[in-house]
């Protein structure tokens, strides 16, 4: 067995409050699940995605110097394939949401800017969203050029169904979640203990999700 292969990870400055690579992967794994099941787009994780992509590239470069007969190359390759699936799939889901809800997402981004809140899209996603919106707008305008004022741009906005049902896992003890069950009154209150899993309507827990108190599964 060839024992000479030495592969190390890119030096990541590891101060106390920074995440280890393993923790970064966990963050993206959780973000993947959240993005998969949340009806709306969630805050981006660009810094971590970029750091992971850097690691992937670095590892790929190192692997090029390794002989294909070394069985360890296969293991590194499999790990890379898993990470690449994780990251590309995560980014694809975000693009799909951007393409579906572009007008609403751009509006909400603008509101966040006005309120000095953190944006949900990174600059590249934002640019993509704007180009996408413009391309749809141009397309519609050229169809309707014979009679331009009859379009109803307000009605055309597509919103996600924030009342859709999701399953979550709680990361801590949480008391008094109001369940929006579609009845106007007498909403139930529920408590969660750390680790408990419930099926519930997204709207009832969206803020807990964004705080990081729960994650979707």
């Amino acid at each position, binding site marked *: 067995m060839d024992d000479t292969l030495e*592969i190390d990870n890119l030096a990541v400055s590891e101060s106390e409050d920074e995440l280890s690579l393993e923790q970064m992967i966990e963050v993206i794994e959780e973000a993947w699940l959240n993005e998969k099941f949340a009806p709306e787009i969630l805050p981006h994780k660009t810094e971590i995605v970029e750091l992971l992509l850097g690691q992937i590239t670095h590892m790929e470069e190192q692997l090029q110097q390794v002989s294909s007969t070394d069985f360890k190359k296969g293991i590194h390759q499999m790990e890379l394939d898993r990470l690449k699936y994780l990251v590309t799939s995560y980014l694809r889901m975000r693009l799909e949401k951007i393409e579906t809800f572009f007008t609403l997402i751009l509006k909400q981004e603008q509101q966040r800017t006005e309120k000095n809140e953190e944006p949900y899209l990174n600059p590249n996603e934002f640019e993509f969203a704007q180009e996408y919106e413009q391309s749809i707008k141009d397309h519609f305008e050229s169809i309707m050029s014979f009679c331009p004022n009859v379009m109803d741009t307000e009605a055309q906005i597509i919103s996600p169904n924030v009342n859709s049902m999701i399953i979550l896992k709680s990361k801590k003890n949480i008391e008094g979640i109001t369940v929006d069950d579609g009845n106007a009154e007498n909403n139930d209150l529920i408590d969660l203990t750390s680790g408990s899993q419930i099926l519930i309507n997204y709207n009832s827990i969206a803020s807990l999700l964004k705080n990081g108190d729960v994650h979707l599964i």
Partner: protein
Amino acid sequence: MDPDEVEFWAEKTPIQIIPSFNSQTMFLIGGDIGPFRASIPTRVPLWMAIHLKKQQQCKIIPPDWLDVEILTNVKEQEKDNKSFVKMPSEHYMVEAKLILGNAADDIPRVDEIRTIIKDIWDIRMSKLRSSMDLMIKNSSMYAAVDNLTLMEMNSIRPILPNALDQIYRMKTIKRGLTGRTQGTSILSHSKSTVSFNS
């Protein structure tokens, strides 16, 4: 989620192997693995164990619960309980399938285990169907699903959440026909008077 995606998450589960090779620690992006010493058990993620097993470079040590007695006990409990029993592993079905499928020669009484796992799965699936039916009958808009594993939760998707979404919609929808408060702005003929997301 598709079953292969659930499998992807389950493949992170650590498992013991007995390598048939020697190697220093491997520095994977997700953490260090090894060192490997022939015949000395070590812990690796399931995906790696299966990969090495396919190349005949290790034996897989089955997790403690992958055992006829323990699983028989679980099965009996599952039968006796109306609710769902906590499973010995949160990915029992995927782990069992991957290990039994790729390392049958490392597992004692493999056919018996296969049958019991299948029985447990079937009992739980049947309970799930009754629970789903009950939930819809009561139009319950939340439910604790504590002891369900990811693959089981996935088996109720999308049908249960979709049906509940529609019940919620039917309960809350208030559509245009009696909406006498909404005026129609005729002259500018803009603004729809029907909401498509009510």
